[in-house]
């Protein structure tokens, strides 16, 4: 056996040892040193290179047994740690930056809360404007992190200012549906601003937009986890305070909850950026679990709706339900493809995704048809226009997604086409939510 072949075999053996992650590179060095020494001893005893390699590997033991033994000793290696490496200067500055912005968000949230208690303002104002006190801080955080050019900072600042002025100058009727629509859609518009800051202005690149989609998914998961921890903290605080100072509970919560919720927005964003290269993304994992389940649910619903028809008591709420459904399906599609290796061929997951999307489209089409058939009974209101518009925006996206997925399965389109379609579609969502915030209220007389 030639020297070169022996090297190849040792290399393959080393790769196999390293595969399970329980053995790290220095351990592999040590084991490889052992193997090489054994081989040279056996060769010195007159064995051929090939024989020596086989016997040496055999004496070391089966690869799976070795790695299992290492795993028992080094269990921690199997759990990737979000280790905070020793604080050097740059890192400390990064943490301080994050913390400062979190504090700013927390203080602004308190400011908003106290302002809402002044005479002449209302709880509805707080509900509507709350996102204006938090999300621009997150955008500013990314603007600082990405060293965004001033031109861009001023541009985004102007957008936020215009939104704030417009929303607050609108004579929105108290408790009216346009007020609620603004409260729901304004955070989404501001999230687009956050996206622009996150991308540091590189809005045109499809791949960068995909990064922001990934960031958004992970951010939502981290924020939820922080919120769960916060709920435990609040629950225990209440339990501890109840016997000694029941009167102070409300005051304590008034200070802790809004500040915590606002500060966590920045902290979650920081966490996502920190762990990006350390931990597997979670959103695609959840997507992989839920896509098949939703596919089954949608398929069954589509069959039932087709057979039974939509009942008489169909009302406008149903459209909102279907908006949420389409949003979930779109989320499954987007986060499914966000983790897809673009070079890989179509697989089972693509089939399942196509089934889910097609069933969702069928269901939605049934609802839309019956809605249009009875549009006279309903008439247009701000709520209905908002729900219908979102529905059409989502339906168009999913229809093209289904078409592209089908072509992908037929081997006639590349996965990257779906990715491009989704990232290219983001401006449509941005335009739509902006329309709902800025155009719908005047159109419907602010009620």
């Amino acid at each position, binding site marked *: 056996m030639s020297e070169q072949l022996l090297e190849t075999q040792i290399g393959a053996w080393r790769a196999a040892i390293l595969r399970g992650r329980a053995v790290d590179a*220095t*351990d592999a*060095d*040590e*084991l490889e*040193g*052992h193997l*090489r*020494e*054994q081989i040279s001893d056996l060769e010195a005893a007159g064995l051929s290179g090939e024989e020596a390699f086989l016997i040496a590997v055999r*004496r*070391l*033991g089966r690869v799976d*047994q*070795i790695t299992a*033994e*290492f795993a*028992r*000793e*080094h269990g921690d290696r199997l759990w990737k740690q979000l280790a905070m490496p020793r604080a050097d200067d740059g890192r400390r500055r990064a943490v301080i930056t994050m913390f400062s912005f979190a504090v700013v968000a927390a203080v602004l949230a308190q400011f908003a809360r106290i302002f809402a208690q002044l005479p002449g303002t209302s709880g509805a104002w707080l509900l509507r404007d709350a996102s204006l006190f938090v999300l621009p801080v997150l955008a500013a955080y990314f603007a600082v992190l990405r060293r965004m050019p001033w031109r861009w900072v001023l541009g985004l600042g102007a957008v936020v200012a215009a939104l704030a002025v417009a929303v607050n100058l609108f004579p929105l009727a108290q408790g009216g549906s346009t007020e609620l629509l603004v409260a729901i859609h304004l955070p989404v518009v501001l999230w687009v601003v956050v996206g622009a800051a996150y991308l540091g202005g590189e809005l045109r690149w499809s791949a960068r937009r995909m990064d922001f989609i990934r960031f958004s998914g992970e951010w939502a998961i981290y924020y939820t986890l922080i919120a769960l921890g916060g709920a435990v903290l609040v629950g225990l605080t209440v339990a501890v305070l109840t016997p000694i100072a029941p009167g102070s509970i409300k005051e304590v919560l008034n200070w802790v909850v809004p500040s915590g919720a606002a500060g966590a927005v920045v902290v979650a964003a920081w966490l996502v950026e920190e762990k990006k290269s350390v931990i597997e993304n979670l959103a695609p994992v959840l997507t992989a679990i839920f896509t098949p389940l939703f596919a089954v649910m949608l398929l069954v619903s589509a069959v039932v709706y087709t057979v039974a028809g939509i009942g008489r008591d169909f009302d406008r709420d149903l459209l909102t339900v279907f908006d949420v459904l389409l949003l979930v399906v779109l989320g499954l599609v987007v986060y499914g493809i966000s983790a897809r290796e673009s070079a890989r061929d179509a697989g089972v997951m693509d089939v399942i995704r196509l089934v889910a999307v097609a069933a969702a489209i069928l269901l939605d089409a049934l609802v839309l048809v019956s809605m249009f058939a009875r549009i006279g009974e309903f008439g247009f209101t701000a709520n209905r226009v908002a729900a219908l518009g979102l529905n059409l925006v989502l339906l168009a996206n999913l229809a093209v997604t289904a078409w592209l997925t089908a072509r992908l399965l037929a081997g006639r389109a590349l996965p990257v086409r779906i990715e491009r379609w989704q990232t290219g579609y983001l401006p449509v969502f941005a335009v739509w939510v902006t329309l709902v915030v800025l155009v719908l209220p005047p159109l419907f007389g602010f009620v």
Partner: protein
Amino acid sequence: MNIDKDLVAAMATPLVLAILVEGMSYGYAILGRVRELSEGDVQWTDGMLYPLLHRLERMGYIRAEWGRSPEGRRRRNYEITEAGIAQLAEQRKQWAAATRTLGGLWGSNMVVAGA
């Protein structure tokens, strides 16, 4: 004669520590010494030695440092520590008690017929 697997596992720690008391050594040489001492009775899958060495290192019984073989190959040398020497003394007492107990039953003639 092959010594039973469980017994080998029980012997492993004192055996390695006792070999390291003789002086600094490394994996391959430790295994060679085991083979030589037991005349082949202790069958050890070579790869299993390393997790054991790492465990002993983690417990503070031995110290490891990277060095080079005369041929220039990188190798990890192990050296016993104070704690390791104390541990070895403790284990030695236990093994002495174990062999004394069995010796009491089997008499001074420990050699089993036919061995």
